[in-house]
């Protein structure tokens, strides 16, 4: 019986962990290639959830259509944000993009609060059934999160390693200046990278949002989690972000299951600060923190 509880917790952790991996993977791509820290990253996750909610409840779209609409809308919005606020600041002091994305996150959060209120929104997907494996229970939506999450992460890996744009992105991450010399249009790569990172956050948003009542503050929470994840995985390392994301989900689920659900966020932060102090380059990273 105790083993079943453990298994159940690990499965819950895996679901959340896949969500973290998607959000943090996008954040890591943006940091690795553009060298900017996107404090507004989780807000794109949150907005995707809200577009999904309104697409289904107001427009009456089916889940997948509303999800596709949400991803497209959030990416388009992200592109606009990137062109208007991040691109003009790219060659200036890194503090500027840090402050600008921090302000963006507040802007997006408070906009959603004004439009939708700070109360919770429930999204009903067609996947409300329950699958029972022995004594372990899995909702269909959680299964969808895992399957779709793994598919998207796999697509990302193939994209980065096998397509010309993916190779140009990795080259830019490796050495921005040399990439420019070799004729890579880094500005174009930046726009593409930002869109891709936002798209991953939006995918996570439409998958995860139906699991719990959606509130505007979920965006900030995911930003902070994604930061913990990419610091653990080594800033800018996408594989590191994926492994650390799944790992953080597991640790949180175990903390919530065996200690207290109120303190599960604290564990993540504590682990993060410890890692920063002892291994500032992350568990898998090669970057330089100091």
């Amino acid at each position, binding site marked *: 019986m105790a083993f079943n509880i453990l298994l159940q917790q690990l499965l819950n952790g895996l679901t959340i962990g896949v969500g973290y991996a998607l959000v943090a993977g996008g954040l890591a791509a943006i940091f690795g290639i553009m060298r900017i*820290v996107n404090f507004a990253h989780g807000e794109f996750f949150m907005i995707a959830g809200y577009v999904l909610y309104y697409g289904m409840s107001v427009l009456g779209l089916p889940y997948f259509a509303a999800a596709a609409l949400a991803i497209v809308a959030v990416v388009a919005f992200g592109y606009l944000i990137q062109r208007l*606020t991040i691109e*003009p*600041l790219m*060659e*200036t*002091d*890194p*503090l*500027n993009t*840090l*402050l*600008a994305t*921090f*302000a*963006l*996150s*507040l*802007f997006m959060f*408070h*906009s959603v*609060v*004004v439009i939708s209120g700070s109360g919770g929104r429930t999204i009903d997907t067609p996947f409300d059934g329950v699958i029972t494996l022995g004594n372990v229970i899995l909702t269909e939506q959680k299964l969808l999160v895992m399957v779709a999450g793994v598919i998207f992460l796999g697509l990302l890996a193939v994209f980065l390693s096998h397509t010309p744009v993916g190779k140009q992105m990795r080259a830019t991450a490796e050495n921005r200046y040399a990439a420019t010399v070799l004729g890579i249009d880094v500005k174009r790569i930046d726009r593409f990278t930002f869109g891709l990172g936002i798209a991953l956050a939006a995918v996570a948003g439409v998958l995860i949002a139906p699991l719990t009542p959606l509130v505007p503050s979920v965006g*900030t929470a995911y930003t*902070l989690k994604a*930061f*913990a994840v990419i*610091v653990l995985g080594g*800033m800018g390392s996408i594989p590191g972000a994926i492994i650390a994301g799944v790992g953080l989900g597991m640790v949180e689920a175990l903390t919530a299951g065996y200690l207290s659900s*109120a*303190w599960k*966020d*604290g564990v993540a*932060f*504590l682990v*993060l*600060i410890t890692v*920063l*102090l002892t291994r*500032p380059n992350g568990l898998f990273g090669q970057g330089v*923190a*100091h």
Partner: protein
Amino acid sequence: MIRIFLTAVAVVVAIGAPFVVTDLYFQQVMVIFGIYAIFAVALDILFGFLGVHSFGHAAFFGGGAYVCGILMETYGVSFGLSLVAATVLSALLGLLVAIPALRMRGIYFAITTLFCAEVVRLIVTNVPSVTRGTMGLTTPLPSFPGVPYGYENLGFYYLTFAVLALSCFLLERFRRSPLGRSFIAIRENEQLAASVGVPVFRIKFYAFGVSGGLAGLAGAIYAPFIGIISPDLLSPTYSAMGMLMVVVGGFGTIYGAIFGAFMFSVVTEIFRAAAELRMIIFSALLIAAIIFMPRGVLTPLIDYLRRPSRREPAVLDVNRKDEA
């Protein structure tokens, strides 16, 4: 000479203002402005003087508010003693945060300070037996010596502006002292400062304590003035609010921080009807300020007014490419 004249005018205006503005509501706005100004000045010690960018100053502002609130409400400690305790404890919290944070640089520093503030918020939220958690803690109205009942606004007003004036005076003196100049040296070029014998880490460490203590004092005045505090005070919104005031006003000049606080309280009051709308407008303003006026609103204007500038060292140019 102009400086002394302007200072004298400011002092006279500050002392006389509550006699001219007798409307209770506008008096409250002035007190809020003063509290925000103290908070902004505290942040400017790190942002402007040292070039250290804390993203988690809400921890000290909210921490000071909670220390003061808990001492007054739960333990019945006097307001004055609570203020002192809140300042000291916030300063200690600042030193505690500085230990891990100062080992980091650039974005890592920003993330660490942000996370430290989140840890404080999590603790306050999850210990409802002491802090009442998300319910919020009500704080009693203090009595001020010599201020009749019903005129607490005046008490808060003079306390706030006395603290603000004293901290500005001390900081202005400090900036011209050898130690103050070593702050600027660290901001301009840390390696160079270290190589000529400036104890960089120690200075940053104590500056963090002073800045945290001053931010905590602002929070400690804020708590009984507002009457109810919640863990929201520790959220990144308040850290951002502080940065907003310093960035909009201009780094490294004390009057810039105060001007930023003034802008913030004025904008806040204009859009008072919709509390959330004002944050949207303010964050949009911040983005615009970063893109179009990286040196703030006031600093370029003052530079223009005294073009053949001889006395002051150049203000921090955040558009510089070197030094992350």
